[in-house]
């Protein structure tokens, strides 16, 4: 195993913070970079297609991304992504409150850091 660069950002949590919410069977996760300089990297990493591909069994519907560039934020709205939602899901976290950390755990798409 090659030694990683110390302090080099590896996952989304290293450059951004997030909060998840639910409406029915739709999850939304808002994500914000700490440093405006990382906003481009965040946008490159977190595309709707990439998020859906990362969790195909969980996120079954459409993923829409809204951008708030002046606040360095992205908002993801993921349809059919809560195992039926709080009414039907038997997941311990039936609201998908922890989905923010699914997103924050994704590896950064940073070609220079390889």
């Amino acid at each position, binding site marked *: 195993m090659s030694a990683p660069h110390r302090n080099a950002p590896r996952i989304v949590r290293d450059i951004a913070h997030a*909060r998840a919410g639910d409406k029915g069977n739709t999850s939304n996760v808002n994500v914000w970079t700490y440093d405006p300089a990382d906003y481009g990297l965040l946008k490159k990493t977190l595309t709707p297609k990439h998020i859906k591909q990362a969790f195909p069994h969980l996120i079954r519907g459409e993923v829409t991304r809204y951008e708030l560039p002046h606040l360095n934020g992205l908002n993801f709205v993921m349809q059919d992504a809560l195992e039926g939602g709080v009414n039907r899901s038997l997941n*311990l976290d039936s609201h998908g409150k922890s989905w923010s950390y699914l997103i924050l755990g994704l590896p950064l798409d940073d070609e220079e850091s390889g």
Partner: protein
Amino acid sequence: MSGAAFRIGTGAGFSADRLEPAVDLVEGGRLDAIVLECLGERTVAFAHRDRMADPKRGYNSLLERRMRALLPACRKTGTVMITNMGAANPRAAAERTLAIARELGFKGLKIACIEGDDVSTLVPKDQPFMDEPGTLADVDMPVVGMNAYLGADAIIPALDAGADVIIGGRLADPSMFLAPIAHRFGWDAGDMPRLGAGTLVGHLMECGMQVTGGYFADPGMKDVPDLAQCGFPIAEVAPDGSAVITKLAKTGGCVTPATVKEQLLYEVHDPARYLTPDVTADFSRVEVAATGADRVRVSNASGSARPETLKVTVGFDGGFQGEAGVSYAGPAAQQRGQLAADIVRERMTRLNGKADLRVDLIGASSLFATAGLRASDAQDVRLHVTLRSRDKEAAELMLWEVESLLCCGPAGGGGFRGAIVPCVLTKSVLIPRERIRPTLDVTSA
């Protein structure tokens, strides 16, 4: 801040929120108004079940404690209280509050009761769902209640009447903040940009500590000072609708652009179109700026015409949910827990089709199981089995099966716990707003 600012605080952001920080806020916050937001869609449905069991209940179970603690502070400081603690029974909640006010000797305290959100007689069985195929008639479960989201226009008449305490049922969360702000500044009901700005304040405040450092801490990345003593938020609202979000200086927590931004889009889909009973709010160009320690200014929210329909939550009796678990630790704990999971699945097949069953291995794979994430050699795991059924006996059988693992399952299992709780199911429909007639009743102690 100019003397013209309207000071509004949050004293609860959900049904089970803390109480003593609310008392601190009323006593020290120099507030004009405090809002206690205590309802979720499922909370209302559970409250309807309570009311069916006892017609004098069906309101927030903490109402009595909250009123006894907060009414004296509100009386002393002249703070108006607005709350949806009435849940499925605002009238009983108002009557209980009136009795407490009389007991405390608060003569003349005006208590307003807002009703009209219960629309169970107004929605036809063939009403289609808001966001999924089908109609109410397709749900094979008993309806427990139907409540429309009431807006600021249902609350403002109570403020006009000089009420000190305003109690309703399904008052929309941001509307409970918007109403006193719009009332103070005399905003026109058609001034959508301002209503959008007031709605932003409500949206940021409605979850209480979620804007003052609660639900935010991530050690090493987002450290929050003294989170155990977190304070509830205050909004200092200017006549143009911009506001400073802050908190009492002596409390824990923090108000930063980051805490405000996370709440800005909490449970929001399109930031340019956030629907409430009052306005289609536009948060897409909101500015967020720190103006001092624990002071963040928000501005530039806007809005356009309100929706012509109101959202109604329909609650159904959803039967029962059973949960049970056994733990395994030490070498090969994950393998032993997995064997226990396989045993439960095999033995529960006799219930096939009669119940929904899920088996998790906490410590190895539970919350993110469907997402496909799984540990490989966890040393401390808990088998967790969940079952939902119309039939209570199915849940009892599941608990029995899990408990039987103590002697009949893999080696070293311990710590069985099991419980069965009632369930609700909720669905949303839209109805024309003119069909809903909110009513107001004001009584003096």
